[in-house]
C-alpha cells in the first residue's frame, strides 16, 4: 500500500482516541459547571435547570459524547461557559499571535541549532566543539520562563533596545528566542552527532580524495545526509512550541492560544479546554505527518524504500 495513505489511515484512529480521552477525562472533573456559569450567584432550582438545558447537560453522557464527536468533525466545538462565545471563534481570534510566535521560535531554533551543530560537528573534540556544545547544553537547561524574564530585564528594561509590549516584528524577537532556545540546544546536539557519524562514512572519504573543497563536502555531501535525525526531532519538538506558547505568552503578556488555554484551565471552562486540546492535538499530529513526508524529500533512499514496500 502507498506509504502516504497508510500514514493517513493511522491518523484517524489516533485522533479519535485522543478526542475520546479528552472528552472522558474532562467530563469526570468534579464541580458543577452550572455554578461556574452563574458565577457563584444564588439561583433557584428552576434557573439552574434552565442553564443546564442551555449547556446541553441534561442529556445523558453517551449522547453528549456522540454529538461531541460529530460536531468536532464538523468544526463545531461548543460554547465557552464563561464568555458564551463559540469556542472555535475564540480559537480563531487568538490563533495568529501563537502562529507567529511558533514560527519565530522555529526559525531561531533551526538556524542557531544547525549553525552550532555544524561548528561542533565538523571538528569533533576541538576547542570550538566544546564551546558550541556548552552553549547547546545551556540551551536545553535554561528554563524558558526565566530566560524570557531575563531577556525582558536586560534588553527591555535595562538597555531599552527592544520594546517589551506591542505588535510587529521587533516585539517578536525576544519571545521567539525564549521559545526557540531549548529547541536550538537539542537541534545543535543532534546535528553535531549526526554530522560526526556522516563525516566518517566512506562516501565522504571518496569526496575528499576527489579533491572537493571542505565547503562543498560539508554543505552538499554531509549536511543533507546528516539532517534526518534533526528533522525527526523537529517533529517531536512541535509539542515544545505549545509549551513555549503557554509559558512565553504568559511571561511576555502576549495574547494567544497558550494564554487562552491557561485561563480556561484556571477557570475550569471545560468546552474551551476541550476545544483547545482537540485543536492542538490535531495540529501536532498533522505537523508530525508532514515531517514524516519530508524524510522522502531529504533522503531519496527512504523514498525508494517506501515505494518498494
Amino acid at each position, binding site marked *: 500500500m502507498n506509504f502516504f495513505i497508510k500514514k493517513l489511515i493511522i491518523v484517524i484512529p489516533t485522533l479519535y482516541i*485522543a478526542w475520546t480521552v479528552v472528552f472522558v477525562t474532562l467530563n469526570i472533573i468534579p464541580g458543577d459547571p452550572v455554578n461556574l456559569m452563574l458565577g457563584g450567584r444564588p439561583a433557584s432550582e428552576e434557573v439552574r435547570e434552565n442553564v443546564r438545558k442551555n449547556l446541553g447537560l441534561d442529556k445523558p453522557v453517551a449522547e453528549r459524547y456522540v454529538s461531541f464527536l460529530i460536531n468536532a468533525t464538523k468544526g463545531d466545538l461548543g460554547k465557552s461557559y464563561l464568555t458564551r462565545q463559540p469556542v472555535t471563534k475564540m480559537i480563531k481570534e487568538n490563533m495568529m499571535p501563537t502562529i507567529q510566535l511558533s514560527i519565530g521560535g522555529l526559525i531561531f531554533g533551526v538556524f542557531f541549532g544547525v549553525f552550532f551543530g555544524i561548528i561542533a560537528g565538523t571538528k569533533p573534540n576541538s576547542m570550538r566543539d566544546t564551546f558550541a556544545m556548552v552553549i547547546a547544553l545551556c540551551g536545553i537547561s535554561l*528554563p524558558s520562563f526565566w530566560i524570557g*524574564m531575563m531577556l525582558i530585564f536586560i534588553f527591555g528594561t535595562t538597555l531599552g533596545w527592544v520594546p517589551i509590549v506591542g505588535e510587529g516584528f521587533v516585539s517578536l524577537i525576544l519571545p521567539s528566542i525564549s521559545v526557540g532556545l531549548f529547541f536550538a540546544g537539542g537541534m545543535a546536539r543532534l546535528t553535531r552527532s549526526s554530522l560526526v557519524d556522516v563525516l566518517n562514512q566512506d562516501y565522504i572519504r571518496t569526496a575528499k580524495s576527489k579533491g572537493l573543497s571542505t565547503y562543498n563536502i560539508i554543505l552538499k555531501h554531509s549536511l543533507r545526509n546528516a539532517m534526518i535525525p534533526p528533522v525527526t526531532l523537529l517533529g517531536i519538538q*512541535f509539542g515544545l512550541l505549545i*509549551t513555549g506558547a503557554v509559558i512565553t505568552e504568559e511571561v511576555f503578556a502576549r495574547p494567544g492560544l497558550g494564554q487562552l488555554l*491557561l485561563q480556561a484551565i484556571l477557570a475550569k471552562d471545560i468546552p474551551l*479546554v476541550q476545544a483547545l*486540546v482537540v485543536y*492542538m492535538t490535531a495540529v*501536532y499530529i498533522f505537523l508530525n505527518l508532514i515531517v514524516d513526508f519530508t524524510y522522502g524529500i531529504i533522503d531519496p533512499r527512504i523514498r525508494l524504500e517506501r515505494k518498494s514496500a
Partner: protein
Amino acid sequence: MNRNKIILKRFLLNKGSAIGGIFLIVIIIGAVFAPVIAPYNWNAVDTGPRLSPPSLSYLFGTDIHGRDVFSRIVYGARYSLSVGVISVLFGIIAGSTFGITIAYIGGRVDIIGSRIIDVMFGFPSFLLSLLVVAIIGVGLWNVVFAVGLASIPHFARIIRSAALQVKEQPYIEAGINLGFGNLRIMFGHILPNIFPIIIVIATMDLGGAIISIASLSFLGLGAQPPEPEWGAMLSSGREYMRYAPWTMIYPGLFLFLTVMSVNLLGDRLSQALDARQSINRGKA
C-alpha cells in the same frame, strides 16, 4: 565486573560529570542542612528592609515581604530537586512495568500496548500535564503526578524495545525452561539487564521534569505561595523585576544550574553506557 569498573572510573574522572556532580552535591547538602546554612527562616517576614538589594547580611537581597531571598533559595532546593526525582521515579516505575510487561507477553498484548503508547504520544507531554492538572486541580503534588504521568509513554517505549532485545537472550529461555514464574523472569532477570538503560534515561529526563514542574508552579498551577519552590518564587519575583531584579535573577539561576548539572550527568552517563556497549562488542 572489571569492565564496569573501567567505565565507572571513566565516568567519575570526566570533567563534565565532575562539575555536574559537585554542584549537585552542594545543592543536596544545602537542601539537607538548610536550617543550618540559611541565615533566616524561609518564611520569616521583615527580616530586613523590603526589596533591599544584595548585601553582606542579605546575600541575594530581600523580597517584597522582607524575606531573605538566599534563605528561601536554600530551602527551595528541598522542593525543586526532590519533586523532580519523585515525578521521574513515578514515571519510570510505571513506564518500566508497562514496557517490560507488554514486551514479555508479546503478541496481541504487545500490539495493543504499543498502540496505547502511540496514542499517548499524540498529546504533547506538556499539554498532557496541563490536562491532568485541569482534572485533578492545582497543587505541587498534583503537578508532580501530572508531569510523571506525562513521561510514561516516553519511558515505556524505550524500555519496551530494550526488554524485547533482552527477551531473546538464551538465559531468559533457560529461565523459562527451568520453570521460573513470569514475574520472576520479568523483574528478576529482564529488569536487572536493562537497568543501566533505565538509569540513563531517568537521569536524562530529570532535568526536563524539574523544569516542567517549576514552569507549572510559575504559571500558578503548582506550588502556592509562600512555599519557597523556585518556580513559584520566580512567579512572585517577576512582579518586582523592575525594582528588585534579584528576586527574579537568583532563583532562576539556581534552577538553571541545577538542571544543567543534572543534564551534564545524564549526558556523561549515556556516553559511559555507550562505551560499555562498545567494550562488550570488543571495540573500545
